[in-house]
């Protein structure tokens, strides 16, 4: 069975990966620079932005994280593919 995903899936996924990557970099930086207020501000800004991106992604492609709303009320979409290693 060959499954193809809409291009939109990959585009949105990569936007999320980029936003979350900035978060991880800032997190590690702040772990050793806990008083850099500018970095804290940037971290908070990207945390918000990442949440927005994920909400948008999840409305088309199903829950991405534990604790996200299952927006399809008659099917448990969390268990649906694709899994990260299948895309």
């Amino acid at each position, binding site marked *: 069975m060959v499954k193809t995903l809409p291009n939109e899936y*990959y585009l949105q*996924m*990569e936007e*999320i*990966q980029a936003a*979350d*990557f900035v978060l*991880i*970099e800032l*997190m*590690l*930086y702040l*772990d*050793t620079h806990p008083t850099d207020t500018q970095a804290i501000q940037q971290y908070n800004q990207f945390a918000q932005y990442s949440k927005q991106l994920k909400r948008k992604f999840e409305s088309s492609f199903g*829950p*991405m*994280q*534990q*604790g996200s709303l299952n927006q399809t009320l008659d099917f448990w979409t969390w268990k649906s593919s694709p*899994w*990260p*290693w299948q895309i």
Partner: protein
Amino acid sequence: MWTYEKKLQYPVKVSTCNPTLAKFLMEQYGGADGELAAALRYLNQRYTIPEKVIGLLTDIGTEEFAHLEMIATMIYKLTKDATPDQLREAGLGEHYVAHDSALFYSNAAGVPFTAAYIQAKGDPIADLYEDIAAEEKARATYQWIIDMSDDPDLNDSLRFLREREIIHSQRFREAVEILKEERDRKKVF
């Protein structure tokens, strides 16, 4: 606790069907300086390290699990459609007779993962120097895998992972500086 996110940290693409690369990648899956060893090393050390660096060990340890998932994805993609003959040609015949194409925590030579790879001395400086060395060894391993690989897409993901080792090493070096600091003396950049 940990929660799962249905995404890779960085996109993994593999352009050529070359199961031999899967064999090499196993060094970073279940090898001494691989991602599993790294994750377990940091997440285990954090219980007995000064408060100031617990956050760093937790966050780097967690990121290592994301890297482990990327390596697993590469190995999976390179082996899932390989026939037994192709696996034998790739040097994975011994792997096949024990595991079929299931992933297994062993190094590139097939040696199973062992907790003996993970150091925990309980001395903060010894442990952080260990961690710095582990990052440099993982960086070197990525270099040697890239040297052996002709797959441009795979190498792109491997370069990402190599760069992460540089950043982790940088942060561990900073953690050493933090622990060296004299009490109440402000850090001067």
